[in-house]
């Protein structure tokens, strides 16, 4: 009985240490983003801001287009996610009804494509975007993001749809429903949890994407927030404004932290389901 007690103590200590290491850098940035320029580079550093100020945030939103970056990211990630779910759910429905041999081949093909390093697609897509005159246009990212996330989306949705009993569809077809009606009115509502899980993951991946957003959006007004805050330091030649950088990190991370707080269970579900199928 006593040994179990010691084991449990060690276990909770280990978990607590990992949690602190995971969170501390972000907390440090959160606190520093509220400090004045002189306090933020002071040695020895202060932990809690002496006179908290929002001036770093004001600078980002008023004198720099962080509001626009935020909006760009939100529009691009949302539309890409919706497109990906719409197109992916149709394809998943088709996929699970194929003869098993063909289904396995296509599913493996998807898996292989999903594992390709993104750098392979970069220049050919850049070329396409330029030819289409779509540089700095939201669609230059929406379409690639939807496509890049399709393998995962189809994979997750097909796994879920497969578990829905066929009898439901047979009943619907006897009732005179068309295939598409059955899909839209019966299957999609039943698959809502899987759509939510997949959608959250795809949204996070789109929000976080860096390489394509860096390359296809070279106008300041078209940037996404991830690129905006990751390249902020490049705008300063000498002394870096650490407080400003910290505020940029916080703004980019905040929506994601909210998503994690609200949907922790779904994200974990999606991650484990996605990798275990």
């Amino acid at each position: 009985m006593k040994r179990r007690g010691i084991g449990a103590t060690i276990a909770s200590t280990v978990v607590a240490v990992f949690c602190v290491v995971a969170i501390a850098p972000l907390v440090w940035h959160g606190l520093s983003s509220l400090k004045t320029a002189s306090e933020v580079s002071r040695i020895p550093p202060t932990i809690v801001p002496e006179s908290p100020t929002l001036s770093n945030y004001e600078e980002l939103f008023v004198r720099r287009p962080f509001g626009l970056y935020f909006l760009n990211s939100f529009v691009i990630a949302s539309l890409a996610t919706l497109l990906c779910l719409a197109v992916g759910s149709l394809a998943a429905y088709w996929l699970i009804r194929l003869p098993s041999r063909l289904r396995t081949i296509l599913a493996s093909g998807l898996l292989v494509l999903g594992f390709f390093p993104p750098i392979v697609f970069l220049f050919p897509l850049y070329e396409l975007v330029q030819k289409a005159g779509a540089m700095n246009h939201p669609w230059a990212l929406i379409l690639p993001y939807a496509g890049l996330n399709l393998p995962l989306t189809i994979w997750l949705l097909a796994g879920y749809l497969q578990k829905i009993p066929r009898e439901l569809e047979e009943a619907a077809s006897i009732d005179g429903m068309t295939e598409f009606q059955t899909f839209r009115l019966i299957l999609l509502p039943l698959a809502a949890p899987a759509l939510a899980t997949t959608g959250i993951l795809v949204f996070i991946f789109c929000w976080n994407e860096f390489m394509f957003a860096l390359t296809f959006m070279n106008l300041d007004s078209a940037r996404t927030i991830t690129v905006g805050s990751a390249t902020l330091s490049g705008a300063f030649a000498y002394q870096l404004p650490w407080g400003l950088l910290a505020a940029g990190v916080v703004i980019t991370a905040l929506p994601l932290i909210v998503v994690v707080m609200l949907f922790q269970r779904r994200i974990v579900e999606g991650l484990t389901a996605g990798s275990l199928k």
Partner: protein
Amino acid sequence: MKTIRTPSVLWALPAAILIAGVLVYPALRALLLSFSHYGLSTAFETRFAGIDNFRRLLGDSRFHSSFAVTALFVAVSVVLEFFLGLGLALAASRLIRGQKIARTLLLIPWTLPTAVTGVLWAWILNDQFGILNYVLAKAGVLDQPIAWLAQPAPALASVIAVDVWKTVPFVFLILLAGLQSIPSELYEAIAVDGGGAWAAFRYVTWPHLVPFAFIALIFRIIQAFAIFDLVYVLTGGGPGGATETISVYAYQTTMRYLDFSYGATIAVALVAVLAVIAVTLRLVLREAE
């Protein structure tokens, strides 16, 4: 009773178009480019190159260096991530309370954009203004500040450490799911047979965990080989190429030197390396089963 036939291929058409346009065509175009000369040096005219680009790759010391950096990065970071993730999962599975909040907190580093993670750590690791040097000096570990990102070995170690910070949660979650799928009766059975903690791990936990471990490792190895964002933001591949990975070299060749065909060749070489690794892992997995 087969009353439902295969739906029309129209269902898959939008996905097929998107996948063809965004993934298949670009991959084939990259392959074609790797057998061409195309870029600034050809005045943006395409010329057939045969295997010239691949020959150049064999003699390109910068490519060799980026390959070695990438391989070292993958080996060290994946091994660290795996053992830390395993230890954390074993600890967390014993928690009676607080598992949910721990999972939420641990998920946050994984959810942050990798590029922003780079900014976050660039300041912490800064030699003059970073908190890390201050804390280490205060604790008496360091006599003088270390320029973490300005010296070759510390810079690579920093990239590895930040990647570990970000991805341990992923490995942890996969392995925790594995641990939670083990029926508790098995542990009771082994306790009745007089087995201790090691026996329980060796004969119950580990055999159940192997497939989960393989999945986590395959995902991590393939993603780590493609690493771009973190290096690009944290060190830019420097100092002196000490942290330049294959993806970063391919990006610079394409977007900075405008040598589109050679950039594509480097990317194709990366795919070839990944293919070899994937096939090897499959064989190992089959052997293990």
